């Protein structure tokens, strides 16, 4: 997952990011709420980890901003040294999905992140079995996509891109998010590569309105794959 972290203590941010990366996530750390908000306006994230006490705008204020400005219900986990009951209630009633008190333990943090992700995106894991999306089916063990039962010939990157988009139907995904999810965080690949591959799978998988799909580019942001209700079987 692509995770945004609000943490002003550099040592703490480095530690959490190291844990997240070792667990297969990508981590984007921001020391100030305004920097995280600026990033969230142009990028998509799968989860936010917010420290309460940061300079300037507090984590609680950033949470209010996230809930008011990000259309999708992206999970928010509060991570903070505050442990009074009223603080916990305030964070949860303000829209946080979970709460952890410092000092953090790696296993607990990763377990809570996984649990939040499962609640946010229920359904089979992306590496399990066959996923059905109308006329499309994804065989995760064979890494194949079929259209009306016929296997579609595609590269591994095209397969990973198709699976990522299908697992995130309805979400606006930034190009950087797609790049990280499919090519990895350290990949030195131009975001235009994303455009090329999206165009290719749109054609191969017939992700067009007449087939019940809309795969649209959103100016200066990224792509959104949507299921058109009228055409869904």
């Amino acid at each position, binding site marked *: 997952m692509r995770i945004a972290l609000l943490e002003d*203590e*550099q*040592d*703490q941010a*480095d*530690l*959490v990011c*190291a*844990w997240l990366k*070792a667990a297969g996530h990508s981590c984007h750390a921001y020391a100030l709420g305004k920097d995280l908000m600026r990033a969230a306006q142009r990028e998509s994230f799968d989860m936010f980890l917010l420290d309460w006490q940061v300079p300037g705008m507090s984590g609680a204020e950033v949470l209010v901003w996230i809930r008011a400005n990000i259309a999708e219900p992206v999970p928010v986990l509060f991570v903070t*040294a505050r442990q009074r009951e009223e603080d916990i209630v305030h964070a949860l009633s303000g829209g946080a999905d979970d709460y952890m008190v*410092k*000092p*953090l*333990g*790696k*296993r*607990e943090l*990763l377990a809570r992140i996984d649990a939040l992700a499962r609640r946010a995106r229920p359904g089979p894991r992306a590496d399990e079995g066959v996923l059905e999306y109308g006329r499309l089916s994804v065989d995760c063990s064979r890494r194949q996509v079929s259209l009306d039962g016929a296997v579609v010939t595609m590269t591994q990157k095209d397969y990973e891109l198709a699976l990522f988009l299908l697992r995130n139907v309805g979400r606006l995904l930034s190009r950087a998010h797609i790049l990280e999810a499919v090519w990895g965080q350290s990949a030195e690949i131009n975001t235009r590569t994303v455009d090329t591959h999206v165009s290719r799978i749109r054609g191969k998988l017939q992700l067009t309105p007449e087939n019940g799909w809309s795969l649209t580019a959103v100016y200066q942001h990224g792509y959104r794959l949507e299921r058109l209700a009228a055409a869904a079987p």
Partner: protein
Amino acid sequence: MSDKLIISVDAQIAALVPRFLANRAADAGKVRAALANADFEAIRLTAHGMKGAGGGYGFPEISRLGASMEESARQRDAAAISVLVARLEEYLARIEVKPDPGQGSTG
């Protein structure tokens, strides 16, 4: 008292540990400077940071010292802070870090 303390740290974060420890040594200097100016709020904030990160890096003693120092700063207890900062410096001087690949999956 000068015996080395061998501390096993999670191999996944071993590369971060030297900077973490250097920052804690810098914290000790900050606390001493703040103590000279009776700036207990600065001490409390520094100690709070120590408390939060120590355990995660594999140094619960740093978290414990930070917690005690934070409480002493709240009580404006300069004598207790002097003792705690000396303990922190002594602890840092004795540490020898050993990366432990086995901790990678157990935290």
